[in-house]
């Protein structure tokens, strides 16, 4: 099984929209949504099968037993994350959102009043029908272990490796841990760029992050005609960095309409559809030549 990951750096460039189109065009047998903080792929690739869901246990969180607590303040003094505070009743409390489960407070407490408790930080879902497998997850609000959950989402596809030729993975915005976790082990990264100053800047940062992994990179410019000048700057950058430009998709109001109707771009007839098909063919050609 080979993996094609779609990233962007900046949010809102069209990652998910393009990922959805690719899944349709490829009739992909396996695909995943690694944007676990804000998963959206299921909204346009509406799986009809029943889901296999399981809770995702993130880092265990500290919990203080009031009856044993001696209020010595050692835990609060040693917590590096400001996760321990005293409430109005004078009781010591752990903020589960700030707690990073390091265990220092448990170790340092002279009364053994603190323990690490399992915490459900999200849920994993696997949709499977006769032709395909779709792995996705939802991180619970405020959680911090998204990188780990991303790895779990990818891992859910592993048992089906033999049946999947190329798996399409919709990534998340940014350059941090969840993105790093998604890049690991993939065969190619397709970066969706947006022709704006912010978009150009963020594209450079994600390219720099992806290059650390020596993974082949391809670039596509989405809504390129919204700003032809910056679009050309992106093209120039790609040439300088020796990154293949796989296509330029025009701005198309019909895309939003399709998305809002729960469809992919290639499910409706529109100018963007034709370009997406060209980008798709160029991407697969590059992918197969690697």
């Amino acid at each position, binding site marked *: 099984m080979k993996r094609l990951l779609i990233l962007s750096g900046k949010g809102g460039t069209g990652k998910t929209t393009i990922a959805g189109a690719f899944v349709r065009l490829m009739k992909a047998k396996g695909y995943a949504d690694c944007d676990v903080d*804000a998963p959206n792929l299921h909204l346009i690739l509406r799986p009809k099968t029943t889901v296999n869901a399981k809770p995702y246990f993130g880092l265990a969180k500290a919990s203080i037993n009031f009856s044993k607590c001696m209020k010595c303040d050692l835990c609060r003094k040693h917590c590096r994350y400001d996760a321990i505070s005293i409430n109005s009743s004078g009781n010591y409390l752990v903020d589960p*959102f700030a707690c990073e489960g390091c265990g220092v407070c448990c170790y340092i407490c002279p009364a053994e009043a603190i323990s690490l408790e399992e915490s459900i930080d999200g849920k994993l879902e696997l949709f499977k029908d006769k032709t395909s497998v779709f792995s996705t997850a939802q991180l619970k609000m405020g959680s911090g272990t998204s990188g780990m959950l991303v790895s779990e989402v990818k891992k859910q596809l592993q048992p089906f490796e033999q049946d999947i030729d190329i798996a399409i993975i919709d990534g998340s915005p940014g350059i941090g841990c969840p993105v790093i976790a998604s890049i690991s082990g993939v065969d190619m990264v397709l970066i969706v760029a947006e022709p704006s100053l912010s978009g150009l800047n963020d594209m450079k940062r994600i390219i720099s992050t992806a290059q650390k992994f020596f993974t082949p990179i391809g670039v596509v410019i989405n809504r390129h005609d919204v700003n032809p000048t910056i679009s050309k700057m992106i093209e120039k950058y790609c040439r300088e960095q020796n990154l293949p430009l796989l296509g330029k998709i025009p701005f198309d109001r019909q895309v939003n309409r399709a998305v809002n109707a729960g469809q992919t771009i290639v499910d409706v007839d529109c100018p963007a559809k034709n370009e997406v098909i060209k980008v798709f063919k160029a991407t697969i050609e590059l992918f197969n030549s690697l």
Partner: protein
Amino acid sequence: MKIAVLSGKGGTGKTFVAVNLAAASFQSTYLDCDVEEPNGHLFFKPSIDNSEEVRVKIPFVIPSLCNGSRKCVEFCRYNALAYVQEKLIVFEDICHSCGGCVLVCPNDAIKEKDKGIGMIQDGKSDDVRVISGFLNPGKASGIPIIKRILQKTKPEDKRVFIDCPPGSSCIVMESIKNADFCLIVAEPTIFGVHNLAMVHELVSVFKKPFAVVLNKCSNEENPAKTYCLEQKIDIIAEIPYNEEIGTVCSNGFILVRKLPKYRSMFENILVTIEKGVGK
């Protein structure tokens, strides 16, 4: 007043709204807490007064004091330590800087050093103080940078605008912790609505007064507006999607400075917030 600008989804116009609110305001402070992909500085182009590296504490061993007890390896919840051929290896990028290994070592063989994970730039653009955080590519968490940025405001700062990271994970929580008001920016797509619901939950749990600005509005159906009406969420403004605005922004200009006719739109948002909407 500290106003956090956030959205569940990236690309809805958080930075656009935060930057323009700060620019339309008098003597404001703009904090860019989207440290993975900071963009506010591209619009403000501030002159930099001060640059500061943000560091975290990383352990290192004094080999002569290490007797191979491996208490540190066993203790580390992140598996950032390994003991091979009688030498301790520290995996710095995995370390969470909790200080636990230092505490558990029976021989006091572990000390800590500072390691840079990013930086903060503090500067000015006309009368706006612009503070931006930059996380080094490859580093996992921007929380220490966000914490440091938030420490830089003073109680006498009248208006502080916090440009938050997208989503609703822990880095967003950190950004809105001390905010007085949360302004949620939503776009008219079903992607936007799904993520709007998550952010809605987030601000509710934190009991922050909040309201929504609908961005990129057109005559088409607006699922985000529908959601807000159903949930009885205050909609403060509906910013249109038009070529004029799109071009100004994509070229990196601040709308209220480039086209002053749009200033009143943002001034109205500020007035509405300060009147006490969303409580």
